[in-house]
C-alpha cells in the first residue's frame, strides 16, 4: 500500500504542475497534462527508470479508463437536443464529410506513404478524423453564430463527426461475433430505455446527499463499458451514446453535471491524459519527425478539403470560413482516446502511438495558433482610420490626473483572467 500512496502522490503532483502550467499559459488542462506526462516519463525514465511512473499498474489503468469514460459521457451530454433535432438533416452531410475525408485520407496516407499495416492505418484514420466540438462551439460564441442557422448546423455536424469516430473505433477493430450482436442488441434497448427511466428514477430517489445520481450513472457507464470490452469493442462508444441520449435530461441538471466534472477533473482525467502522454516516445519522434509532419499535413488537408467548401456554401465570409475550417481540424480528447485504444489493443506500436498523439496535439495547437495569428475575424472589426487617444482630464479615485496616452503601450486589460 505504501508504494501505491507514493505513486498516487507522484501522479497528483504531476497533475497539479500541469494545472498550474495551464493557468499560467492559458492553455487547456488536457494539453498540459499530456505534455507533462511525456516530459515526466522522459525525465523520470532517464534518471530512475521507465517503470517508476507505473503507467501500466492496474489501479492507474482503472482511474485512467474511468476518466476517459466519464469525460466522453460528459462530452456526449453537451449535445443540445433541440438544435440537433432542428438541424440534423443538414448536419449529417457536413458531419459525415468531416469524418470520412480525414478518416479515409489519413488511413490511405498511413497505408501507402508510411507503410503501416491495414489495422494501424485504419486506427490512424480514426484518431485523426475527430473534430473538437468545444473548439467549434467557442468559435461560434466568438462570432455570435451559435444561434444562427450556420452555427447550429456546424455544431450539430461536429457531434455527427465525433459519433462517426466513436462508432468507427468501437466497431472496426471488434471481430464480428455473437458477442457483437449481443452488445448491439443490449445497447439498443438500454439507449431506448435510459431517457425514459432516468429522469423518473432521479425524480423519485434523487436530490439526496447519498449521490444516488452519480452511482446510477456510473453503474450504467461501467455496465455498458464492460459489455463493450467483452465484445472487444471500446468502452467510450456506449459512454458517448449514453451521454447523447441523456443530454436532454441529465445534461440539463447543472448541479449533477458540475459534481461529475469535479470528480472527473479533480481525480480521473489527470490520470488519463498524463498516462496518454507518458506513452509518447520522444526519441521515436526525434528519429523520424517526417512521419509526424506527413500525418499532420494529411489531417489538415483532408479536413480543409471537406469543411472549407461547406462553410463557403453557407455564404460564410472567406476569412471566417478559413478560421472555422482551421479550428475544425482539431480534436484532442477523441484523438488521444483512439490512439491509446490502439496501443492498448496492440493495433499500433509505441512509435506509431507517439506519431499519432503528437499529430493530435499539434492539430489541436497549430491550427489554433495559425487561426489566431492570421484569421481572427478582423473583417468584422475593421481597422480604425485613425487611432484616437484622448488624455482624460479626470482625477483617479486615489491619485493624480490620468494620462491614457502615457500608459498605453504597456497597458492592458484582460477581463477573462481570474
Amino acid at each position, binding site marked *: 500500500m505504501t508504494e501505491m500512496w507514493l505513486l498516487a502522490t507522484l501522479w497528483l503532483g504531476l497533475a497539479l504542475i500541469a494545472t498550474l502550467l*495551464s493557468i*499560467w*499559459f*492559458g*492553455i*487547456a*488542462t*488536457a*494539453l498540459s497534462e499530456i505534455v507533462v506526462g511525456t516530459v515526466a516519463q522522459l525525465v523520470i525514465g532517464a534518471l530512475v527508470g521507465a517503470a517508476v511512473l507505473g503507467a501500466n499498474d492496474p489501479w492507474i489503468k482503472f482511474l485512467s479508463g474511468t476518466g476517459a469514460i466519464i*469525460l466522453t459521457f460528459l*462530452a456526449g451530454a*453537451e449535445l443540445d437536443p433541440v438544435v440537433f433535432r432542428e438541424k440534423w438533416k443538414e448536419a449529417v452531410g457536413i458531419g459525415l464529410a468531416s469524418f470520412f475525408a480525414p478518416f479515409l485520407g489519413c488511413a490511405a496516407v498511413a497505408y501507402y506513404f508510411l507503410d503501416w499495416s491495414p489495422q494501424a492505418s485504419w486506427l490512424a484514420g480514426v484518431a485523426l478524423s475527430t473534430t*473538437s*466540438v*468545444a*473548439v467549434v*462551439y*467557442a468559435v461560434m*460564441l*466568438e462570432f455570435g453564430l451559435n444561434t444562427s442557422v450556420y452555427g447550429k448546423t456546424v455544431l450539430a455536424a461536429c457531434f455527427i463527426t465525433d459519433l462517426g469516430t466513436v462508432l468507427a473505433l468501437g466497431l472496426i477493430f471488434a471481430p464480428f461475433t455473437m458477442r457483437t450482436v449481443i452488445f448491439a442488441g443490449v445497447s439498443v434497448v438500454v439507449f431506448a430505455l435510459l431517457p425514459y427511466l432516468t429522469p423518473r428514477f432521479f425524480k423519485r430517489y434523487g436530490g439526496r446527499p447519498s449521490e444516488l445520481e452519480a452511482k446510477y450513472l456510473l453503474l450504467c457507464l461501467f455496465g455498458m463499458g464492460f459489455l463493450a470490452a467483452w465484445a472487444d469493442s471500446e468502452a467510450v462508444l456506449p459512454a458517448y451514446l449514453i451521454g447523447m441520449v441523456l443530454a436532454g435530461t441529465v445534461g440539463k441538471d*447543472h448541479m449533477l453535471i*458540475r459534481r461529475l*466534472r469535479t470528480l472527473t*477533473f479533480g481525480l480521473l482525467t489527470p490520470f488519463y491524459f498524463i498516462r496518454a502522454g507518458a506513452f509518447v516516445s520522444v526519441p521515436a519522434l526525434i528519429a523520424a519527425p517526417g512521419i509526424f509532419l506527413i500525418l499532420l499535413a494529411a489531417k489538415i488537408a483532408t479536413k480543409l478539403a471537406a469543411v472549407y467548401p461547406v462553410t463557403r456554401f453557407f455564404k460564410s465570409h472567406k476569412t471566417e470560413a478559413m478560421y472555422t475550417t482551421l*479550428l475544425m481540424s482539431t480534436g*484532442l*480528447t477523441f484523438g488521444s482516446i483512439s490512439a491509446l485504444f490502439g496501443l492498448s489493443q496492440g493495433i499500433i506500436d509505441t512509435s506509431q502511438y507517439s506519431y499519432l498523439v503528437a499529430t493530435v496535439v499539434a492539430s*489541436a495547437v497549430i491550427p*489554433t495558433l495559425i487561426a489566431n495569428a492570421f484569421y*481572427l*475575424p478582423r473583417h*468584422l*472589426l*475593421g*481597422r*480604425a*482610420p485613425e*487611432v*484616437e*487617444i*484622448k488624455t*482624460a482630464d*479626470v482625477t*483617479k*479615485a*486615489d491619485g493624480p490626473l*490620468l494620462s*491614457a496616452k502615457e*500608459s*498605453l*503601450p*504597456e*497597458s*492592458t*486589460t*484582460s*477581463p*477573462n*483572467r*481570474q
Partner: protein
Amino acid sequence: MISKLIVAYDGSKQSEKAYKLALDMASKYSAPMIVLSVARPPEPPVAVELTAVLDRATEYFEGHFKCLKEQAQAMGIDANFLVRVGHPAEQIVLLANKEKADAIVMGHRGESLMERWLLGSVAKRVLSYAHCTVIVAR
C-alpha cells in the same frame, strides 16, 4: 460629448478603478454605459472543460455585477451588464462598434511576458481597432 460608454470589467482592482472612472464620466455626461466582461476559453478549447470554464466565468461575473449594478443605480446611471466569450480585445471593440459607443474605459493590468506573447496586449489591440476614444485607467 459622450453619449455612450463601454467599460471592460474583469473583477480586478484595476477594472474596479476603470468602473469608478466610467461611473464618474457617465454621471457627468448623463450617458448610459455597458459593462462588458469577457470569458476567454482555454487554448485550444477542449470538450467539457470549455463549458466548465464558461459556467464558472459567467457565475463569477454575474456575482460581481450585482454589486456594480447597485453602485450605478445609486448614481442614477443607466447601466447594462454583459458577458461575452472570446478574445477580450475583439469582443470589446466589436461591442463598441455595434453599440456606436463614444468611449471605451478599461483598466490597466500588468500581464506577464508570457501572457502578452500568447494573448497579445489587449489594450494594444483595442487601440488598433477601436473607432472611438480609449481610456486606460491606472
